[in-house]
């Protein structure tokens, strides 16, 4: 008998976990049991076709309400993409080329140590052309021709703001809701709360594609997909472009597949003896994990094998798609992952930190990612997946209107700007073709509808059927939430 199902039977027979037992050991248990076994009378509305005997069931009572999306793909553009050169169209700035940014605009806001010593703050209008696209007539930079094709599916938020001014705290903030290391990441929260729809793959997968060599690449931190105070099971699992796609997935050289099965069969028999001797249910759990590991050895290679993708689909993503570790390849992987029921996919793309040589670097960055991004939306849509997949795009902050370093007509740099920046969302739960919020003439301050990172995260949770104020865990004496302690609400204006 498959030890996993045997294990389930054991659970019902023994019923050993009362409410108190359901803390640590129980959590792991919850990972393994069918949700129906544990939740008893709790009715979970539309959990999205859980497979029988789900290995990653949701927490009891989750989702809190009917979700619009069952998965999320979060494209994190690490470094702080320039809103002024991509989305926040300010044609009037051309007339202010090289004029000083008025003090009244800058106010008393702090600026980073990198430009605080500059004698002046000359306005650097974007050198890129913008055009209107789609039914919505959205202005989009010439750098994003492919994303421009799907603007009618996108809700653009021009007024996201954050409290952090440097990469490390800002990235930690955008991904974990706090600037200081130690919290759980967005993906871990979702894995913890909602579980996964696939028994053979992890619930939360992270991709870190390569980026153009000439770009200014900042560091990533594994805490950005870490589980913090949540159990380690909810760590994002890296799907890697180099080596094993999942750590330690491949059998060692010379270990023939049949031999692994022989070894596992013996292991199961011996562990069952151990269980009979001690009665520790954790042994059953361990046996189930070994079986899942074995299944992953098949499911993951199948996942990363794109040989059966139709040529038309590969063309959509562009030639780079065949290169493992490229952004386009990662975008295709993201689709394949959500298609298989993985709850959260994060693509962490680096190189968006344009302090200098912005025109060249930003163009390279967009060439590297734009086609894959546009293709992902189209591909999801043509498969009917977009309506239950939420796609999020954005960085950790924006960039200043004034130039860092020398400003010429064809070259400039921009410093960090946490006051406002652009992000977009598309797919499940999102109203397409709209734009939210306005900034002043210099894209320096929000003038209408600010959206804080915590509100953004609350919105993401909302689309997945989670009330952000009710997904909490007690840690160090506090009820920890992804979205902090201040009262706030999801951004209604962009919800479908």
């Amino acid at each position: 008998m498959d030890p996993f199902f045997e294990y389930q039977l054991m659970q019902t027979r023994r019923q050993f976990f009362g409410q108190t037992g359901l803390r640590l050991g129980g959590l792991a248990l919850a990972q393994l049991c069918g949700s129906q076994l544990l939740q008893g009378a709790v009715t979970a509305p539309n959990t999205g076709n859980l497979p029988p005997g789900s290995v990653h069931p949701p927490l009891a009572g989750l989702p809190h309400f009917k979700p619009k999306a069952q998965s999320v793909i979060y494209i994190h553009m690490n470094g702080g993409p320039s809103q002024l050169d991509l989305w926040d169209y300010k044609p009037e700035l051309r007339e202010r080329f090289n004029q000083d940014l008025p003090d009244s605009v800058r106010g008393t806001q702090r600026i980073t140590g990198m430009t605080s010593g500059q004698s002046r703050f000359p306005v650097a209008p974007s050198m890129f052309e913008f055009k209107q696209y789609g039914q919505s007539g959205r202005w989009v930079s010439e750098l994003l021709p492919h994303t421009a094709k799907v603007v009618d599916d996108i809700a653009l938020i021009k007024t996201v703001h954050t409290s952090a001014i440097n990469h490390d705290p800002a990235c930690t903030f955008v991904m974990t809701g706090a600037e200081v290391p130690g919290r759980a990441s967005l993906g871990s929260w979702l894995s913890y709360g909602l579980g996964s729809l696939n028994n053979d793959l992890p619930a939360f997968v992270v991709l870190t594609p390569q980026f153009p060599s000439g770009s200014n690449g900042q560091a990533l931190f594994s805490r950005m997909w870490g589980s913090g105070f949540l159990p380690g099971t909810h760590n994002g699992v890296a799907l890697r472009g180099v080596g094993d796609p999942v750590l330690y997935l491949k059998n060692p050289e010379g270990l023939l597949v049949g031999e692994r099965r022989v070894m596992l069969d013996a292991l199961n028999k011996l562990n069952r003896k151990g269980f009979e001797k001690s009665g520790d249910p954790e042994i059953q759990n361990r046996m189930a994990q070994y079986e899942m590991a074995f299944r992953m050895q098949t499911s993951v290679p199948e996942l990363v094998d794109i040989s059966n993708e139709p040529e038309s689909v590969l063309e959509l993503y562009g030639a780079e798609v065949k290169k493992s570790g490229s952004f386009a390849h990662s975008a295709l992987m993201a689709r394949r992952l959500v298609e298989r029921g993985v709850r959260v996919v994060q693509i962490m793309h680096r190189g968006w930190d344009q302090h200098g040589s912005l025109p060249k670097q930003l163009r390279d960055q967009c060439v590297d990612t734009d086609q894959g991004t546009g293709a992902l939306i189209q591909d999801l849509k043509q498969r009917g997946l977009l309506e239950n997949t939420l796609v999020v795009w954005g960085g950790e902050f924006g960039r200043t209107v004034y130039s860092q370093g020398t400003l010429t007509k064809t070259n400039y740099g921009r410093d960090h700007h946490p006051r406002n920046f652009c992000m977009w969302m598309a797919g499940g739960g999102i109203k397409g073709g709209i734009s939210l919020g306005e900034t002043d003439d210099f894209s320096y301050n929000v003038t209408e509808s600010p959206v804080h990172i915590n509100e953004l995260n609350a919105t993401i949770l909302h689309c997945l059927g989670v009330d952000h104020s009710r997904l909490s865990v007690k840690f160090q004496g506090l009820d920890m939430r992804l979205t902090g302690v201040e009262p706030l609400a999801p951004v209604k204006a962009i919800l479908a």
Partner: protein
Amino acid sequence: MKSSSFHLVLSGSWVGAVMVFFSVGVGVGKAEERVISFNQDVRPILSENCFGCHGFDASKRKAKLRLDVPEGALGRAESGEVAVVPGKPQESELWKRLVTQDKEDVMPPIKSHKTLTQSQKDTLELWIRQGAVYQKHWAFEAPRKAPFPKVAGGEVGGNAIDLFLKNGIQRAGLRLSPEADKTTLLRRVTMALTGLPPQIAEVDAFLADTSADAYEKVVDRLLGSRHYGEQMARHWLDVARYGDTHGLHLDNERSMWPYRDWVVQAFNRNQSFKEFTIEQLAGDLLPNPTPEQLTASGFNRCNVTTSEGGAIASEFLFRYAVDRTVTTAQAWMGLTVGCAVCHDHKFDPITQKEFYQLYAFFNKAADPAMDGNAQLTAPVVRLATPEQTVRMGLLDQQVADAQKAFKEGMKALVYQDPAEMDPSIPAKETEKVLIEDAFPEGALVVVQPATEKQTWVTGNEGPVSSGLKSLKIGGSGVAQNFYNKGAAPFEIPSEARVSMMVFLDPVEVPRSVMIQIHSTSGWAHRAIWGDPEGIGFGTLGTTTRYAAGELPPEGNWARLEVDVEKIGLKAGDQITGIALTLAGGVAYFDQVSLSWRVDAAKDPSQSFKVWLAAHEGKETQGFSVAINKVLKTGAAKRTAADHNQLLEYYLSQVCMLTKPVLQPIQNQWTTLKAEREALDKEIPGSLVMKDVPEGRDSFVMSRGEYDKPGEKVLPNVPAVFPALDPAWPLNRLSLAKWLVSDEHPLTSRVTVNRIWQQLFGVGLVKSAGDFGSQGEVPVDAELLDWLAVTFRESDWDIKKLVRLIVTSAAYRRDSGGDNVSWSKDPENRMLARGPRFRLDAEELRDTALACSGLLDLTLGGRGVNTYQPPNIWEPVGFVGSNTRFYKQDRGSALYRRSLYSFIKRTAPPPFMANFDAPSREQSCVRRERSNTPMQALQLMNDVQYVEAARAFAERLIVEGGTPTERVTRAFRTVLGRKPSPEETEIVLGALNQHLATYQQFPDAACRLVLQGESKPNMSLPMPELAAWTLVCNLVLNLDETLTQH
């Protein structure tokens, strides 16, 4: 009757080397209405559901009602109602609000999403009925030794610990598991105290020892093992958030490992926890601290730090102090003071002001906001070996000698500045050729555009003015050859001209020709001949594009010359690049020169005065940092010593008259100094604590924002605790002494609890990091207090405490249990069963290495990089970081104990992270224990485990015997015990299948056994070795192997 037995335990060694049996004949009393304890039963309910709005935090308090103190609950509230009327639930507003059907009135409010269970409501009702007695939170009262409980029925084995546990176990209706068999016990205690499995010989010795105290003897042996300290340190390093990198942004390597080794040694020499505390929190403040005490103070330098460009210093100084405050409170007091950074603690009596008073102890640390991405960010301690100290002394002497020789050489020299001579030396015309047949040596030349028209030509190929070649330049538009990197700079003498020879092609006549000079201010010096608009670089009419005149006649060599002043250069400037440029057509360029009149009185290479005037007040490329600094300070502020330093530099490095004599002596001195510095770099160092001498004011930071200082505060401890001795200075040393003072209610409890947790898997207080009202109440408060007081009274003797716990009957029980036991107490909180939990990451790897025989037991030293899959560091690493690329170590470093693995905090070793080891970015007092498929994959496939299995298999084969005997040895090596016949049969079954396969595929066998860097014994039959490798892989993956039990 039996009370004499109690005395035996109390007055004898409390470590309880002897097993004492009690038999207490008092029957269990008739079931009565249970007595509600406020701390045990009521506070957790109120804390979870009520204190958020009706608790300690005045700013968030609703309706001015406070339920955490009796004055609040029993007094009349704002509304006129009384929340709690002792004895009368029906008259108590609190009770009414709990049970009302009115959606407006019900408590907790509906929108809080909190509800009480029926049994919680019953508890509150009963508590009110029984008189609503309040107690101060248990953890804030000093622990007292309660009288030993009266134990009902049956025998109590073991020591004092078991006296306390007995009743709880009985009340819970659990049956005690019997004592574990000897091999299990030996493996358990060896693993617990050293992190390694016992060797077969040790098992045999223990089995053979039938004396009554055989077990205690083993415990003493293990406590004396040097691996005891490693095992204890592993847990403490989680608390200390120890790592080998800074943790933020670049995440460069930092040298902290001497602190790690200090912790190991402190446990090994059984330093009292009191000193352990004082040295780590304030080793630097002790009188004449030893290097070890300074190293210990590194505890609070383990926090993550940054050097991110643009980071704001005051913000990070604030964060570091907050981290140190939070970590110290967490580690010693089990308090979660982090919430009080922003506001009064909601549940515990720690006000925001009190937080900042604690913070004030740490807010004067001398380490900078920016760590400089350096290995050793000051303040540090250097730890030289005796040999290094000797070598250093020798070198110091040699450096001093060389310096003396130089000074004497200086003194012997007679230098007269020509600028001050009367009469002066007559001037003469001089020229220096910069370019003849090639660009200067080392120049990185760029040719734009790169066409065949641009080339050096010989006399056969075109006109040459001097030397062997000229440079042909041409193209359709602007064409040029230039360099600005790679070559040594030229210094410009006074009144200099720069010139070039130019030959214009008579057929393709250029529009303009140009020479451009690159200096430290960039490409900003240009002279153009011909059409001044022909070449667009620079601004016409300025020194960045100076129109120097007409084009010379074509078809002839002409010398084009310009005063350097016209193009913005002056004496002393450095030429760091030259560009020869033309617009359209073709021209030949030859000999580029600097020419000037050498007037000794005006020549910087002869006159110190002139040289000084040229460099005064600025930085010059090529000069040393020190010299530039002195020059930049300017003449007005220069001391005599500075002036002398400049003169020495000039005479030994610049002046053409004296340099030939002085330079060699100085070089000798410099070389020795460099050697001394290199040695200095070799000597390990460790980050230590120190306060800034002038102190730093602390303020309550409004809402926890670093730039919103409010009320000024002085260092102090929270009012709920015993006060600081007013005679003590307000510094960290006093804080440390206060933490380990006799009256402190928390330190001893928190410490014994953490060690209990280490040994049993779960603490008596499960929330080891939270002893506040949100934490769990102890599963046995009297036992915890008894242990805490006993520990304190033993002068905080950790080995004694460990010995006491592992020699208890509770610790020695079999970890299995019956159905009732597992279902009623799945987490074994009542301890009717022995400890059973998954081993930590480090123990798993060390076990595999130990069984394989590969393990290298060297103690201490810099972190090692063992096997790691590719691409762990690289995808997250910052471009300029020195931990961007993982460089795996070789040889025995691969088999060091896991404690010594290098921890890069932004990408910790996956073999550890995968098994819940914390990233060490913040203090961790309790690891999670997850159970995932990724762990299974690691243990089956990671090269470390496969290689270990292979080496283990070799051992089994080489040591010989029948397959059955080998299987037995495999089990005994890993688990201590022998396999059952059934188990042997299962393993042999697998072995035979593997053997059959590998005999059929010997190539695959070869590949399997070649995993890892250590080489297998190639004389063994490969199929057999491969099959046994898989058998060992199997045994190393057994649940029992992965479990402390």
